[in-house]
């Protein structure tokens, strides 16, 4: 975009600034929309599960204007800062929380090449920045000057820090499989039919996916791991003293981070923007067919990606309204005693598997018994070795 602007003789610095602003605006829109839709989804799904209807009034039959209405109401609420609170930190915390989540969107590709910042180490960046979110929560909990909030913050710290480990390991599994940390590349490697997705690569990745789901739920503080704001124990945890707009920011941060972890999960395991059926490539909507076709194909891919991310969010919501909450020691136990060993074992398994059967289970069987390999495989990009990765290189030629 910057190049486009420069080409119509706009100064360099201005062009880059405008481009950055436009991209930020787009991402912010996506982040906010995902939060809004997430909130709406949460209310509707929880209502259906509980034999209710959920919002029905605001904005027609389905109450789809409920989130903006909620936001409006919350803005109108009295903004209270407790006397015992650390005023500056108390004010900063929600923005830290939201900004951290927003930063993650920077590296999140929505379609082939549609990413604000295409990083070599995208997966790494994503994990690192997503971990910043707890900073806001801890700040908020600490600065509230309330004991319940402090408990929430401490729980958050303990929980998220320990869940970063299995979460990271889950990502490492995919990195080993693909040999790259570039998220765009990881997405591209899963192009083609749904059995190209990493989740179906082999039984180990299938298990790893579910471990990833567990950890993702835990790291975005959703039930059954919503201990920082466990309402039946800690009143509202770190949110206890927050009201009005600051509370909205925390809330949007939570839903946006739900979107992020779901999106990351889709990217790593569920083929990213590649649909179960490669419609785009079957119809020739690839960059090879021309810019416009490529653009339409990417748009389709983006729809795919967003649909998957929302499916992930729906699953998290569904999970939340089904399960009781774990206790803090059990949360840590689940992480260290169950998730970490399982994912470590699976890591070893994946390594061995990709050594012996590098093509994955279904592809391997297919390539052995079916003469014609799927066309998408041919268009698959050659694997690349990143500076950070440098582990197993995947040779796509083996499949043929």
């Amino acid at each position, binding site marked *: 975009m910057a190049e486009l602007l420069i080409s119509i003789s706009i100064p360099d610095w201005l062009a880059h600034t405008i481009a950055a602003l436009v991209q930020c605006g787009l991402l912010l829109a996506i982040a906010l929309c995902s939060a809004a839709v997430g909130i709406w989804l949460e209310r509707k*799904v929880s*209502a*259906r*599960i*509980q*034999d*209710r*209807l959920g919002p029905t009034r605001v904005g027609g039959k389905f109450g789809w204007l409920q989130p903006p209405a909620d936001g409006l109401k919350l803005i109108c609420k009295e903004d209270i800062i407790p006397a015992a609170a650390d005023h500056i930190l108390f004010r900063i915390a929600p923005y830290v929380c939201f900004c951290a989540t927003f930063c993650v969107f920077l590296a999140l590709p929505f379609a082939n090449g549609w990413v604000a910042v295409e990083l070599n180490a995208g997966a790494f960046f994503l994990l690192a920045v997503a971990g910043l979110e707890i900073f806001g929560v801890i700040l908020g909990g600490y600065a509230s000057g309330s004991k319940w909030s402090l408990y929430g913050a401490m729980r958050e710290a303990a929980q998220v820090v320990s869940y970063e480990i299995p979460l990271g390991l889950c990502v490492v599994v995919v990195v080993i499989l693909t040999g790259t940390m570039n998220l765009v590349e990881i997405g591209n490697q899963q192009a083609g039919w749904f059995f190209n997705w990493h989740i179906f690569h082999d039984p180990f990745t299938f298990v790893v996916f579910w471990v990833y789901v567990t950890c993702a739920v835990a790291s975005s503080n959703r039930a059954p791991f919503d201990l920082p704001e466990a309402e039946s124990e800690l009143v509202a945890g770190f949110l206890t003293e927050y009201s009005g707009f600051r509370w909205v920011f925390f809330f949007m941060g939570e839903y946006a981070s739900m979107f992020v972890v779901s999106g990351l999960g889709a990217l790593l395991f569920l083929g990213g923007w590649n649909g179960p059926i490669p419609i785009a490539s079957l119809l020739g909507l690839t960059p090879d067919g021309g810019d416009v076709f490529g653009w339409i194909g990417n748009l389709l891919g983006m729809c795919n990606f967003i649909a998957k991310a929302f499916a992930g969010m729906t699953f998290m919501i*569904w*999970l939340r*309204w*089904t*399960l009781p909450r774990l206790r803090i020691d059990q949360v840590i136990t689940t992480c260290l*005693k*169950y998730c970490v060993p*399982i994912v470590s074992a699976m890591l070893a398994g994946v390594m061995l598997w990709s050594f012996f059967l590098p093509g994955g289970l279904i592809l391997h069987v297919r390539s052995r018994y079916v003469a014609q390999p799927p066309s998408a495989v041919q268009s698959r990009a050659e694997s690349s070795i990143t500076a950070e990765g440098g582990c197993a290189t995947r040779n796509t030629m083996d499949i043929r």
Partner: protein
Amino acid sequence: MRNWFRNVYQAVVTVSLALWVCLRYWFRTYNPRRKTFTEHYEYPELPLEIFPRFRGFHRFNLTTCIACERCARDCPAGCISIGKRRVEGKKGFQVTSYTIDYGRCMFCAICTENCPADCIYMGSSYDLSCYSREGCVVDFARLPVEVAWGRATLNPTAVACSKVVVEPVHGGPNA
């Protein structure tokens, strides 16, 4: 170790079972015949269905009340007070006020049990509210005629009517 595997197995099985039960509910609610449970009540739009024995706000028949004060004596909360006046040349009393303090009434229907004239019974209104404790006091003698005579049930409009204080046009003879 066996325990470890059992725990994992248990967790996976029971969580999936629970998810399945919830999913079933989720989709069952889309059945147009079943609907969601709350969909059967469209409260603010449509009034709730009320059973004939419902003990709502009272209905009181001013015309038959003989001001015997049995209801006021029987009331456990002491929320009924009756004002009465002898009528010259006639038997019995005239009821000048019949107040029920709904801030105290607990809708136990004891007042209706022993009424010799059958002039008080439980009505079917349930949605009456006010902003002050004084507003909870309803004087049935001041209600609009059809309500006070027991033909209509106590309703917000009627109560509002009864609360209107009619000021004299001038400040009285000494003003």
